[in-house]
């Protein structure tokens, strides 16, 4: 069933999301309203990695 899905493409986009979120935090100037919300976004991105990216490497 895994072949039906664009796992590699999804993993790439997930990586992009992570880079974007991390970059946003880097330039936030320490604004808590940015940093803390980015941390939450990163927690969700980690779940995307667990659900998609981690398996991409073994298929």
């Amino acid at each position: 069933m895994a072949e039906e899905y664009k796992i590699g493409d999804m993993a790439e986009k997930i990586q992009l999301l992570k880079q974007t979120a991390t970059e946003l935090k880097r330039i936030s100037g320490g604004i808590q309203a940015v940093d803390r919300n980015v941390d939450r976004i990163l927690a969700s991105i980690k779940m995307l990695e667990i659900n998609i990216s981690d398996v991409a490497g073994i298929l």
Partner: protein
Amino acid sequence: MEQYWNPILETLPREKLQRLQLKKFQNIFKWAYEHSKFYHKVYSEAGIELGDIRTFDDIRKVPKVEKSMMRAIQGKDPYPYGDMLCVPLGEVTEYHQTSGTTGQPVYQADTWQDWEWHADAWAYVLYAQGYRASDRVFLPFGYNIFIAFWGAHYGAEKLGCEVIPGGVLNTEARILRMQELRATAMMATPTYILGMADVARRKLGIDPARDLQIRKITVAGEPGGSIPTTKKRMEEAWGAKVYDHIGATEIGDWGYECIYQSGLHVNEALFLVEIEDLDTGKLITEPGRRGKMVITAFDRMAQPCIRFDSKDIIEWSPIDKCECGRTFRLLRGGVMGRADDITKVKGVLLAPTSIEEVVRSIPQLGDEYEVLVTKKGDLDDITLKVELMAGQEGNVDAIKNKLVDQLRVKTGLRYTLEFHEYGTLPRYDVKAKRFKDLRPKE
């Protein structure tokens, strides 16, 4: 696709699934080795280094962790979790603790990331059991320091369900609220599911199967969901499908029934379950042999759970392919008890779940029962207290014969039987304590 939360992981061919598991085990082992003083010490003392885990067999060399080891390091800095903690205290956002049934409670730290993971593990459970965004899910759960259905709340939200927190309401108010709001699903312990149905009928004149719209129930916290006779009673009382689920504070939510109810799937994308022979400690891979579970959560980072000796008694199912198409292995009979609970009585190993299975197979008996193990002289004695349903007083002899026969078949033991009036044995709101071993400790 419709029946899977994640069709990629849930239908991954076994060989690929095992490669994923090995990779994930290596990652969590490295993380704990490098970030937790506790794990570093345990592994160093065992002579295990980073890079030593190359195959599945190597995993068996990694020392197991027990609850007593966790208790020993807790209450110290970083307070109160001690050296098991892998992240700075400032990153911990969730505190929970075990109930302390077997001793001093264990503190559990989670970060936002862990909490997302927790909700996702529950999402696998609920999606497999048919929960969808259209469901209105009622949680008759006293939201508190115990993790219990907190994860279920967030897992159901993740699916898009409407979640109703039925926290500080009494049982009657919860039933009325479920009726008023037309809740379609709920989650609780088997004891409370049966207890609520009883209260609905006796105190409110409500027949849950007829008057409420609950059609899916997820149970946890006790073995009842995988005991056929208890499941049948719950399903009949509520007119709903009842699905079992298994999780623990220190582990996460690792096992669940799907809509086909063929056994409990182990979520092998998030957890590694090993079953060990109770006497030899050797790995059991074949179906039908009971053993003790050793479990690893691959992605719980603040306070990792690596080769945790849970003492839960489980066995692999002979069914190697569930109709649902998941490749996750199945367990037969759920968690049958804990290694600590499976007590020797009169020289025979006794699992309390076997007694429950018998009591609840006899319709003339109520849901409640109590087992007392005592010492009379040098001999063990087991007293089983049961409740007669109203109007059954004239049938005691026939019921007694049936009970004696079935108990002998299921447990190989003889019991002193006590019949009580319906409604007189203790009732429980969460986890029941029906098995009491009152023999002097040696």
